[in-house]
């Protein structure tokens, strides 16, 4: 396992970009690119990342970057991968997409590319809503959450996209978090050297969208793991494995209370007792399910 001191000093996504202070997506992207290095093509659909990279003629990306319409990135990356193959160029193609572009509008496209097992690395940074439009619900938004289009709290649970991706039979699926950088870094390193469609989903807090104080974004990401709200795992060639940062928290008695996580964020301020019960039930069920899957072939 890589230690924090071993992370490269090189920066591939430069400072001075357009993100908000405390933005999780840029923490994630910065470290993902450290793991991937220079030989990578980035494909980015409509999202906060289209804005964060900075407008023409500036760009914070020091690797080639193709912007695409919202639903198109997995297909555009497929075309790019095939073209590089015909032209005999050996580089990684990485999609960097939001949860809206992955869970919702782009799902057919992502599923198509996964079913074809295109040789690309698909990364979804999950900030649990459409942040670029000002914070609106996506199917990644957890139950009970306030967004601009769920003013009294979302009625539905978060969609389990990592398991849906795993059901495609692709070689690698993982969840990661910006609070556990070395775990994230190692997952990217591993995925980088694999062939076929690789899916990694990174938990990425959004300070304005979550009504979260700037300095609390890493802390809230850590709590998401410690409360069981966001379990970290890998599914490598069909075998499910809980990742080290989540290991201790599969047991209910070890988990921190959900309210520790909720109280940092304005998006959960209105939650009632019964909402918290429902969310707790969801966390209990998922944690139990994952504990029973640990170490087993699940697809």
């Amino acid at each position: 396992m890589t230690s924090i001191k071993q992370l490269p000093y090189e920066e591939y996504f430069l400072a001075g970009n357009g993100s908000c202070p405390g933005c999780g997506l840029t923490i994630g992207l910065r470290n993902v690119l450290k793991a991937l290095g220079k030989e990578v093509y980035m494909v980015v659909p409509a999202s906060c990342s289209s804005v964060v990279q900075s407008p023409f003629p500036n760009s914070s990306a020091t690797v080639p970057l193709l912007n695409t319409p919202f639903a198109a990135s997995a297909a555009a990356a497929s075309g790019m991968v095939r073209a590089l193959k015909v032209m005999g160029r050996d580089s990684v193609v990485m999609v960097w997409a939001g949860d809206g572009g992955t869970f919702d509008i782009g799902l057919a496209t992502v599923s198509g590319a996964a079913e074809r097992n295109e040789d690309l690395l698909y990364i979804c940074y999950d900030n649990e809503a459409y942040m670029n439009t000002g914070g609106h619900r996506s199917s990644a938004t957890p139950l009970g959450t306030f967004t601009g289009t769920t003013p009294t709290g979302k009625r539905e649970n978060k969609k389990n996209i990592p398991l849906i991706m795993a059901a495609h039979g692709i070689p690698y699926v993982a969840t990661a978090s910006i609070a556990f950088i070395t775990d994230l870094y190692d997952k990217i390193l591993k995925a980088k050297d694999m062939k076929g469609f690789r899916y990694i989903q990174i938990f990425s807090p959004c300070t304005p969208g979550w009504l979260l104080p700037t300095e609390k974004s890493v802390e809230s990401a850590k709590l998401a793991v410690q409360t069981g709200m966001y379990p970290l795992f890998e599914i490598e060639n069909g075998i499910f494995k809980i990742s080290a940062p989540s290991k201790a928290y599969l047991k209910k008695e070890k988990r921190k209370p959900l309210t520790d996580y909720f109280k940092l964020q304005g998006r959960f301020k209105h939650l009632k007792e019964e909402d918290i019960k429902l969310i707790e039930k969801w966390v209990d069920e998922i944690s139990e399910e994952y504990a029973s899957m640990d170490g087993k072939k699940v697809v």
Partner: protein
Amino acid sequence: MSIIEEKKGVSNVKVVTANEAVALAVKCAKVDVVGAYPISPQTSIMEYLTKYIETENLSMEIVRVESEHSAMAVAMGAASVGARAFTATASQGLLYMAEMVYWVGGSRLPVVMAITSRAMGAPWILGNEHTDVLLPREWGWMVLFPEHNQEVFDTIIQAYRIADKTLIPVVVGLDGFILSHTTMPISIPDQSVIDSFIPKDVPKPYALNTSNPFTHGNAVHSNVYLEFRYDIFRTIEESEDLVDQVDKEWEKLTGRSYGGVIEEYLLDDAEVAIVVIGASSGDAKQAAKNVREKYGIKAGVIRLRSIRPFPVKRLSQIASKLKAIGVFDRNMSPGLGGMIATEVKFALYDLKDKPIVQSYIGGLGGKDVRIVDFEKIFTELKEIVDGRIGVQRVRWVGLDLAAVDSYFEEV
């Protein structure tokens, strides 16, 4: 085969549908990546291409995607790193793809797309109509429209030449079913001729690579967007000569050319003419001959081969010698007129001696349009010139409202 072709040693003749002609042209153009999704009447293009790839060991990659939106995204991704890319669609497929088509236009990527024309629902309809092919003319694409299978093959090759030169993507439209599913012998030039006509090692300032990284398509402020759009406008406007020139150069190599932006038929002494695109042009030409013989009407045909660039220059030269033009549109702009008639009027408005322009709409959804229908258009144009009847906003061809009324009575 023509004498010129024999002289040039071109001997590979195949009897093919226009869809197979498209697929052969894509193979001969050595396209690197194809985005493929089925829809009638385009589907067999993709069937032929997959067959060539799988049985002839081509190095072409075909990505059998899950939607047209993705088919164009594949072409875009491939072109963005400098590969030669192709896709094809029709009708509903084009509408589903629309967001990507516009994006590729704005991206200035030299993609070529074939559209086998087909009407659009609701209600469900398979028949031929040109509205779909014409839509991308507003989306930053060139739009060319050949008349027959040989010209379809030749135009796909010419399209790559034009796209590589201008960095404007090109649509090649062809009549669904009428061409896509009917056969005709076509002559295929030597591969070396095609390689020299559309070399792949052309400058690609837009192509992404890891040694000189840059960002493609990132947000701009409104201080430059208008200027970017202007450059697309100007490039298409100025490419009227380029389309002519590319067609002439193709003639030098193959003995075949089609008049560049416009094929002129019996126009030298003509008084009235029909503007038409695609496969119906053959019927219009026959009708011009017939009315000359039968009624002594000095009739001619203006076959638009290029809708973008819209051939304003050449059309003005031709039109200033005419008394009346009938524009036959197999499409419509609801409540206004035929789409091409609207553009012809715009193009000719500033002419000093401009002809009368009469819009005709017909053939929507595949309704038959016959030689006699074009003869009738010519005789009406003559009557308009002679002042016996007036111009109407639109004259409809083959409109039979009684047929619909009788159906609703039965119900």
